[in-house]
């Protein structure tokens, strides 16, 4: 069972998908190592990771398109892979939306959607339901190649949902869409999945996509899960430097912790959890507050960079020790390059044990 650790926080509800220390090798390369994750019924889990980290392979192992080399996979309490068992993909009742949609080019939209259904009146009704669900009612007689990218995407979704799969897997479902379209389609798909009460795993390399679409996010680094948590928790309480650096921008400030306070070169800062000894505190740009100062202030830092993004300024600041951090400031503020500023934090901070000096 998944341990009740900070890496895998507990959750309540009917568990639909469970992967336990799943392993996968391609030749000499260990692509997935000791991967454990679980998804409860009706939930959307995002599997987030950089390219080549093994997330697509994980998805394909869940679907049964790839054999596992160790561990096990359960769906609805039924063992589908592991301990010498490998249920064929066609017998798993797991739907998949492929990155390039993989629509059958020789079949109409309706026939694509009915592909996985038993023939009969029921199937026709189910096709109409599925197409209505994705907002493509009346498109049944078109061919896939006559549709736009976003429409093809929704056909792929309807096709995968039509047989009422136990779990729906989506491999980078939005990566082939124009950036403008992506946000809208993402929201739509989320609503469709909610309405269908589908249990889904979504693979993505886009953290914004993961954080905004999923109920929970599993961050995958080097073939293993680094942390699984709600999006807010993953962002604000990363369990390691790797996680902190992957999600959002992360800068570190060395200091000496003593209980809930850490002493740093910019002064005492509050900690989110008690710690003792040499630590590095995580400073995200939006946690940093700047105020005007002058050269004589021994704690003052110097502004070395300034970028304007309309809604905010991104200010690069060099501390006296040489440490570089960034601060996000509101549209009304202005700190020019060369100005002296005082740095403080707006929230209690996360501390990681300090790295040994090099």
């Amino acid at each position: 069972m998944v341990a009740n650790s900070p890496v895998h926080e507990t959750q309540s509800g009917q568990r639909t998908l469970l992967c336990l220390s799943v392993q996968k090798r391609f030749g000499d390369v260990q692509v997935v190592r000791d991967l454990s994750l679980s998804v409860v019924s009706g939930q959307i889990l995002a599997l987030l990771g950089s390219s080549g980290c093994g997330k697509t392979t994980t998805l394909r192992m869940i679907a049964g398109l790839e054999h596992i080399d160790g561990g096990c996979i359960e769906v609805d309490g039924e063992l589908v892979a592991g301990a010498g068992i490998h249920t064929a993909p066609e017998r798993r009742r797991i739907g998949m939306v492929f990155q390039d949609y993989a629509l059958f080019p020789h079949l109409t939209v309706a026939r694509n959607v009915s592909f996985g259904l038993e023939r009969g009146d029921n199937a026709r009704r189910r096709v109409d339901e599925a197409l209505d669900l994705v907002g493509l009612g009346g498109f049944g007689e078109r061919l896939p190649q006559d549709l736009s990218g976003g429409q093809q995407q929704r056909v792929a979704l309807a096709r995968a949902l039509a047989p009422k799969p136990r779990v729906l897997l989506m491999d980078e479902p939005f990566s082939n869409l124009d950036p403008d379209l992506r946000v809208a389609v993402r929201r739509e798909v989320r609503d469709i999945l909610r309405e269908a009460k589908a249990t889904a795993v979504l693979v993505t390399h886009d953290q914004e996509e993961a954080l905004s679409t999923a109920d929970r996010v599993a961050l995958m680094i080097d073939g293993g899960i680094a942390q699984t948590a709600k999006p807010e928790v993953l962002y604000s309480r990363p369990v390691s430097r790797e996680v902190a650096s992957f999600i959002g921008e992360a800068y570190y400030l060395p200091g000496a912790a003593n209980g809930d306070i850490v002493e740093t070169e910019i002064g005492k800062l509050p900690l989110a959890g008690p710690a003792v000894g040499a630590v590095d505190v995580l400073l995200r740009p939006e946690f940093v507050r700047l105020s005007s100062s002058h050269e004589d202030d021994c704690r003052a830092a110097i502004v070395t960079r300034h970028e304007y993004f309309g809604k905010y300024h991104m200010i690069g600041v060099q501390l006296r020790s040489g440490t570089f951090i960034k601060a996000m400031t509101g549209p009304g503020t202005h700190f020019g390059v060369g100005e002296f500023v005082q740095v403080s934090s707006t929230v209690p901070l996360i501390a990681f044990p300090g790295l040994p000096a090099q």
Partner: protein
Amino acid sequence: MQLIRRASATEFPPVPTPWTRAQDRARRMPPPVLLIPALAVALLVLSPLVYLLVRATDSGSALPESLFRARTMSVTSNTALLATTVAISASSIAVPLAWLTTRTNLPHRRLWSVLAGLPLVIPSYVGALTIIAALGPRGIVQGWLEGPFGIERLPSIYGFAGSWLALTLFTYPYVYLSVQAAFRGLDPALEEAARCLGMGPTRTFFQAVLPQLRPAIAAGALLSALYAVSDFGVVSLMRYDVFTRAIYIQYQSSFDRSAAAALALVLVTFTIVMVAGEWWMRGRSRHYRVATGAARPQRRHDLGRWKWLGVGYCGAVFTCSVGLPMFVLLYWLMRGASTGDAIHRLFNQAWNSVSLGLAAAVFTVALALPTAILSVRYRGKLTTTLERQAYLGFALPGIAIALAFVYMGARYIPSLYQTVWLLLIGYAVRFLPQALGAERVSLLQISPRIEEASRTLGEGILGTLRRVTTPLATPGLLAGFGLVALTVMKELPLTMMLAPIEFETLATGIWQATQTGAYGRAAAPALILIVVSAAPSLILSQRGFEQTS
């Protein structure tokens, strides 16, 4: 103090994970249902070569002796001469044609671009026949010249001159199609860059365009040279002593099979070297080619006053390569009195040709399928070797395959000897590459993702093959099928040597007519053969070329 700064994921968005090579390589072992037939096919393809090798070395000291006889030397040099000159002249005809039909405002450009590929539908031996009829002693041209000018003898068309002319006229389309494709794939920006660097149009062509075309020209020229070396009909009609003719004469005139086998082995060595050269060229030409589908259309040169010279050139080539043979054949047809018996015989020949072509196509396409699936879906060292091996037939001249199967059939499989089955096997070995190429292309176009999608929707392996793979691969399978059927109908030496006695096809009918000197009788079967293969083979050849190059 160290400076800790990590690049965040928003700053460097990673590219979406592609289906990496490592993952594809780690696929499961090929299933025995496919592997065993593919291995059998590979052995079948290899068998004629092995037999020739065994046979030629069988007689011990006879091989070096027969190889270094003066006649062998002259045959070798004749073959080399013919191959070289045909390659050069075919390229010289083809490159201007390709340029005119792709890069200029030639009137009726699209029509000419189709017409220029048309000589491919005329079997080269039919073409040679009509050349003899036109330019030979007591031929049509001499007849015209005799009256007004009193010319009683034209320079002899037999021997090198006639073979060279016929092979040039009927194989230049290989170069033409290759170069045409290269012209279409050329990036216009390179030419524009050359112009901006101060080169005139002529210098631009020779310094910026032509070097890029070199691999395509070389590949096409090698194809036509390979055709010249493998061809049997033309050189036999023209009585020019090259390998294929020498092999056939040796086969007919003596019981010493080793000598014919030794000659065939030298010929095969010749052709294998050429095919290897062609592969090498094609591999290199990929480096030169720019991404297809250039964003901007290419600018066409305005020929201006030279327009009609261009039309004249295209027209002259077309007249010689298509007009002349068609004219001669129709002339003969008009003059020749066909009896009822001849029509009956003609119908029989046509029926045999078509049914043989279709049967050979079904057989060959089926034999190639396991190898095609393995090489596309289960890529690995073994399957790649099997695929390469299946392409060997491309380098085996029909006469060499025929010779090997005649001997092997008579000796080891008498039950098949003198049956259509042995003929079908011979065709399969020779034309396996065509079927395999078409099948591979159509399978490669089907994403494995689509088959996997079918699996996740609850369809098993066989159901996926039936409902997804087969319907999607059908156009490619049909293309391969049509290509094999058409080439089989035109094939001469294999049909002649392996067909059961009394089994006549259009090709053997034409051949027999020439052997008895009754050239007029060849007209009807030749015209039927050309008409049957014209339209579809043109489409196929043009498509096939785009796919292979």
